């Protein structure tokens, strides 16, 4: 045995000298045994430790594959997506009822992307050049996947042809989309319709628009134009237009007020004489109307600014902000597609005038039309706000469903009771208030009009938010007509036609 024998180690130090005798050898043996035993036990412990470390990696990897492994792929830095276009013909984009709004044609040499929907679906479909947008961006990864059958894959591989890509089905309803486009006419503005129970976007129109087929040409034309007009048609006003909410914001103010007075039964009476005097100047009702003695429901229905100015002084900005942020203000609505963040900047120490302005939707509050539609949809859905989305499912080239996306809850900013209250008030607004033109025969509509002042002048944007049928909501809309004038006269009739189209067909 070598000198490095363990017997000479610990054993020697503990055993008495003169280990030649049998007795001491025996002791030495015992000590060494227990030492090797404990060393082996520690080896098993270490082996267990390494096993845990490695199992940790395996579990981490499995979770990664089950979870975000697929979701992260849709990223502009992932060249795999672009690379796929060498093997796969980009798939089509369809509306929920099967109308093709983007497709690729293979002419033997090149792949040509065309948009049969032209201007009507401009902002829905988006574009591929100059950085993607719209559904082209949202669905990009899936459009370049191919879930065709194995025999088809073999055949194409054999012939050296590209695989047909999967197609993406959006939640957009073609009838509603086309009607919205038509109704907005030559105005600038936005129309968005949402299914309250799921958050699926049914229609999304933004004007000015463009024809995606001629985008390159349009871009070179705009390059010559004055700075002010440049590229504004590329902006999807539904998701990225920032507007003052006008009187439609009174929905939130009313909730804040009801919340302040638990068990509120609409008992307080307010007297309106058309002008509400404040230290910083008068606040007038739209058109100088004098509402006389009214309750909250009446003030909401008739869109009286005075009563809301009074409420605005009373509401604690902290609570108000919590309420607004519950709806998605100052927050990201969804991370799936780009939506501007609606802002509610009311500070805790804001002065009375700003509080009053904010209460009836002027102030510094800015919303996107999508945010407005989501507020109406939340009221319609009993206080449950869903995450907005417009990507429904992925179909394989042979039409089989590959992936179907689920709706997600965004939050519950208001209680079911508050939602019911607001529904009643919004019904009142349509039945006997400023929103009568939104009514549809045979269907109870709930809504709120707004005429949002912009700049310093008296001109207003026309707004309407609402949903129908009030007792079993199927659709919530926001119509925003820039420089349209009165919400009740311009926006409400458009909403009425949309409700009719969607609910009667």
């Amino acid at each position, binding site marked *: 045995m070598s000198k490095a024998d363990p017997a000479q180690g610990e054993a020697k130090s503990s055993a008495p000298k003169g280990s030649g005798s049998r007795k001491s050898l025996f002791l030495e043996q015992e000590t060494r045994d227990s030492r090797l035993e404990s060393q082996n036990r520690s080896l098993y412990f270490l082996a267990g430790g390494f096993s845990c470390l490695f199992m940790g990696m395996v579990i981490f990897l499995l979770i990664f594959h089950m979870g975000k492994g697929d979701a992260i792929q849709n*990223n502009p830095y992932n060249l795999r997506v672009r690379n796929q276009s060498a093997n796969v013909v980009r798939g089509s984009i369809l509306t929920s009822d099967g109308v093709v709004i983007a497709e690729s044609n293979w002419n033997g040499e090149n792949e040509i992307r065309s948009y049969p929907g032209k201007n009507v679906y401009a902002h829905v479909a988006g574009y591929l050049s100059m950085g993607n947008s719209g559904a082209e961006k949202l669905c990009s990864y899936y459009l370049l996947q191919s879930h065709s059958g194995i025999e088809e894959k073999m055949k194409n591989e054999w012939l050296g042809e590209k695989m047909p890509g999967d197609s993406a089905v959006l939640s957009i309803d073609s009838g509603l989309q086309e009607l919205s486009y038509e109704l907005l006419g030559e105005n600038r503005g936005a129309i968005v319709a949402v299914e309250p129970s799921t958050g699926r976007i049914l229609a999304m129109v933004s004007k000015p628009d463009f024809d995606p087929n001629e985008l390159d040409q349009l871009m070179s034309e705009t390059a010559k134009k004055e700075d002010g007009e440049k590229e504004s048609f590329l902006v999807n006003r539904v998701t990225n237009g920032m507007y003052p909410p006008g009187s439609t914001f009174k929905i939130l103010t009313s909730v804040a007020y009801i919340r302040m007075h638990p068990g509120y039964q609409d008992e307080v009476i307010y007297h309106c004489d058309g002008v509400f005097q404040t230290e910083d100047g008068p606040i007038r009702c739209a058109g100088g109307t004098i509402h006389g003695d009214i309750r909250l429901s009446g003030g909401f229905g008739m869109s009286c600014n005075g009563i809301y100015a009074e409420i605005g002084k009373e509401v604690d900005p902290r609570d108000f902000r919590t309420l607004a942020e519950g709806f998605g203000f100052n927050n990201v609505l969804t991370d799936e597609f780009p939506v501007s963040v609606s802002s509610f900047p009311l500070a805790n120490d804001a002065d009375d005038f700003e509080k009053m302005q904010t209460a009836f939707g002027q102030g510094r509050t800015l919303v996107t039309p999508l945010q407005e539609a989501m507020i109406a949809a939340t009221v319609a859905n009993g206080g449950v706000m869903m995450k907005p989305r417009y990507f429904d499912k992925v179909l394989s080239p042979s039409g089989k469903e590959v992936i179907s996306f689920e709706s997600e809850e965004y939050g519950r900013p208001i209680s079911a009771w508050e939602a019911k209250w607001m529904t009643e008030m919004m019904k009142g607004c349509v039945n006997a208030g400023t929103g009568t033109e939104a009514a549809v025969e045979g269907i109870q509509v709930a809504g709120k009009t707004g005429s949002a002042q912009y700049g310093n002048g008296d001109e207003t944007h026309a707004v309407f938010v609402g949903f129908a049928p009030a007792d079993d909501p199927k659709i919530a809309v926001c119509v925003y007509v820039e420089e349209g004038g009165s919400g009740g006269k311009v926006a409400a009739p458009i909403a009425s036609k949309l409700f009719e189209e969607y609910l009667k067909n």
Partner: protein
Amino acid sequence: MLYLIGTITKYVMLLCMVLYTIISFRALLYHRIFPERVPTDSLEERRRKMEDSDDLAEERWERSYVCQMGLAIICFLAGSVNLFLNHLTAGIILRSGVMLLFLTAYPMIMQLIYPRLKTLLLCDFVMYSGIGYVILSRLSPEKYAPKQVLMLIVIGAALMWIPKIIEKLKDAKIPAAILGILGLISLIGVIFLGSKVYGANLSISLKGFSIQPSEVVKITFVMLIAMLFRNRSDFKRVFFATGVAAVHVLVLVLSKDLGAALIFFVTYLVMLYQATIHVKKGRLYPLAGLGCGAVGAVGAFLLFDHVRQRVTVWLDPWPKINDTGYQITQSLFAIGNGSLLGTGLYRGRPTDIPLVSKDFIFAAIAEEFGGIFSIFLILAILATILRMIRISATLQTVFYRLVGLGFATVYAIQVFLTVGGDINMIPLTGVTLPWISYGGSSLLCMYLIFMILYGLVIMRENEEIKIGEEYVSGGRPEGLRTKTDRPEQKKNKTGNGQGVQSGSGSRRS
């Protein structure tokens, strides 16, 4: 047609990997069972029983060995066929042929030279270097693969005699000390002579060859620490050994090779734990070590910009995707794109990942061979590490036990750092995946580890044969028997080993 063959070979590789791992774990459960010693047995009877038990052990080992070797070679062949499908050049056929010859012949030659070399580590070597060759050829058939094949063969041939030395070596103390000190000197040398690679002093260039001393110093470090703890583990010795380890770690930190510093640190802690386990309150040492490590980690975080940067990138790489987070997000894209079954060879885009041939080879494997394949690869490596620990557990000499354990730790931590880094489980440390990643220094390190372990296996076989002989001949003085001295104990328990030692002890006395 090509598509079909490509897909089939992909699944063949996956199947091989899965079966290989299962057999590998099953083999861990086998151990030699010595026959019970019955006093009335005649000498003839004892010999017969011993031969039976030998036959059983031999048969089991043979079966596992043949299966695993076969699977490793089939896996390599399937990968090579896939390479031919996509990149048919004379060079690649030649290299694959050479590689096939090497992978089949090398274990055979080793066994011819060392008839007692009975270990499944031989199969592990074939499996991992086979996978490494396939993935490196796919990544760059002209740049990485030829050099890697050349290095595998040259280093493998050059180091074949190491087990012989270990078998012959009577006392490892002086060689271990000399090598340890030389290692430390070369490590310090890198700070002054080294060339900068990615902001860290890692390698010394000599006439076109660049060598990364920290890879080889891992071996000498383990031997040095094992030498220090071979017969003493009192406070003074622990203090001294800790000082030696601290110098190594500090030198590596100074040359900004934090991944290697971490490997050295953990390896030392594990060896310290093992060496002081029988000392009263010995468990306090590794605990104190862990404390120091935590302080050191915080210190490194505060002191070094690049450490802070890597930690922030690890926490959320996406905001920095076009900058410091580029590597790891590309790796995640690759792993996610591969999904569970993999894209198949040449159908992914692993070359988008910077440094894919070294630090990110695991991501390339996960993308093209698939998630399941990569998970089973991790498990197979775990089996290899457990096998190393078992070799260490069956040895009698503290020095070699510690060496075996130290090597297993080096291997385990290195795999954990690189795989964990690639999947963003831990911050990136810039460590290569042993046997698979491209690089001569890494290969040299792994060859040394495996060769020394082969030596230990042969040593163990020699010990076992002695035990068998003693069993047959009736052993040693009756007075030396203790109650734990039961020859029928399982082989991997140390109890049986006493026979050898008490025998020698009696000779000594």
